[in-house]
């Protein structure tokens, strides 16, 4: 996994509430046996019309908005627990999702795949969505170490599981994390 320390980018506003994992990646794309390629189909049924033509009304198809930060409405990632949703978003690629609430399992899946879900207050989210929609060049900075998100509208801090924070800062997943503890584990083994 890639390290995540600080990150600055513009963002894509998608102020819809209750976006479920079926919208993020429709069930018909789940048959693949590895994790690659899901990014192509993220929000598939919003990005494309029924006849497979591009839906120009959808924000991902609007060149005004760019960046690897997605700002989404309340309760993002609800519905089925499929990890494919996190793979699809990370594969698109997004590095950060901002919302005022994330579904629990989605949050865990995102963190395990190097995708940072940032929970902000509903007021901050509302202001942020407005700012970015009006001024697409608004740049947002995330400082994971300090757990802050800042842009022209102000600074807000966010919470993150301390273990997952260490993982992201170092670019580890559980396997990498355990391997990083090799010396300690070996010392433990020797003491047995």
């Amino acid at each position, binding site marked *: 996994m890639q390290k995540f320390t600080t990150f600055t980018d513009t963002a894509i506003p998608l102020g819809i509430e209750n976006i479920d994992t079926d919208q993020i990646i429709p069930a018909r794309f789940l048959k693949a046996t590895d994790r690659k390629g899901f990014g192509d189909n993220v929000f598939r049924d919003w990005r494309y019309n029924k006849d497979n033509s591009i839906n120009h009304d959808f924000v991902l198809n609007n060149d005004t908005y760019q960046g690897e930060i997605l700002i989404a409405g309340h309760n993002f990632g609800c519905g089925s627990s499929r990890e494919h949703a996190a793979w699809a978003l990370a594969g698109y690629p997004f590095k950060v999702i901002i919302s005022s609430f994330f579904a629990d399992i989605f949050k865990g899946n995102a963190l395990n795949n190097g995708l940072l879900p940032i929970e902000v207050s509903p007021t901050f989210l509302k202001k942020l969505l407005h700012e970015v929609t009006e001024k697409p060049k608004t740049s947002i900075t995330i400082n994971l170490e300090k757990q802050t998100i800042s842009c022209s509208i102000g600074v807000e801090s966010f919470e993150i*599981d*301390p*273990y*997952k924070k*260490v993982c992201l800062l170092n670019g580890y997943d*559980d*396997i990498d*994390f*355990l*391997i990083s*503890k*090799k010396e*300690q*584990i070996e010392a*433990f*083994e020797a003491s*047995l």
Partner: protein
Amino acid sequence: MGKTLFDKVWDAHVVDEIPNGPQILYIDKHLIHEVTSPQAFAALAERNIPIARPDKTVATADHNTPTLNQHLPIQDPLSRSQLEQLTENCKKNNITLYGLGHKYNGIVHVMAPELGITQPGMSIVCGDSHTSTHGAFGSIAFGIGTSQVAQVFASQCLLLEKPKKMRITVNGTLKKGVLPKDVILYIIAQLGTNAGTGYFCEYAGEVFENMSMEGRMTVCNMSIEMGARGGMIAPDETTFNYVKGRKFAPKGEEFDQKVAYWKTLRTDDDAEFDQEYHFDASEISPMITYGTNPGMGIAINEKIPHQEDPSFKKSLAYMDFKAGDSLLNTPINYVFIGSCTNARIEDFRVVADYVKGKQKASNVHAWLVPGSREVVKQIEEEGLNKIFNEAGFQLRQPGCSACLAMNDDKIPEGEYCVSTSNRNFEGRQGQGARTILASPLVAAATAIEGKLIDVTKQLN
């Protein structure tokens, strides 16, 4: 405050604690089999990570193996390729494999204790939920998912939150004909299939103290069926005597030193549990299940209870039983005596004892599937195979067999099977098959009579 048995073994394996996060738990033994290991091997190979401790990993083939003609090439292409992959993965990574046909081959939860791989005070994991079996030795043993199999491969450790602690105490004397399987079916029927969720369960009291290792394994095996992460019983003389002299057990002075340590693995008098239950042994009768989860159990001479719950009704509809009915005299065409719950030598002794000189009913297919090659050997040495032959039972080769019907051993649609296994879920033993869980004694009696009978009446 004192420590519980679980605390003592768990805490002894904590390498490190992540502040506000999980603990790193060291794993002494990692058991693997053909079904849940291939993706984990692949995950490591992709990232070029070597297996940390192949010497602490032991493999067997059991879930997908045929139980007849094991010397011939495997017919089913899926099973064959899984077994080939396991062989190749073990070879590449220097992992000991007791594959099909090997003298130590068997169901992972039967062969490991038999070989002395399972020992008190250990932490043991396997990509299989019934790993809880090994807790019978006073070890912490639990099933893990494939991504966790990969974690253990990579580091010999797991990241885990420590579970809560529960104790179930059963005191008193068991009635004649009441076996360890009845004890655990009774407990699950009393507590339900969710009572153990989030807990590690210690079984304590006279009943477990007086139980053989085989019986303790049967009990701990089904801990998962009440939702518990695992079950365990404090090691004692019965445990030490069982372990002593087994192939991978410590020898001589090392053994004595180990025993001295193992003796400390008891719950302190002032230790506290998050949850406690007490039962009276004399209340327990031979049990059967009537529904499609292991908590739907009754004494064999009881009637099916009434419940309005739609899932309860759906379950009875699947089984084609009615609330208020007794199951006595229900005709049964299939009897399966096997699985990691009840396929140890003691189970076959119980069966042999009962069927000796009797004949199975002509309508019954009676499958005896030993848990391991070692069990087969013992059956032959003790001459039990002759008894089974004469009684018309079919003695097959070791494997998981009809416990999960992944191989050819399936119960036909609509048929009832009195089974010594651990799960009576819809379709578990074959599409549309109807499973009635029971002890080896009840299963043997059913095979002889061709129907469910109150076996206690015969014994008294």
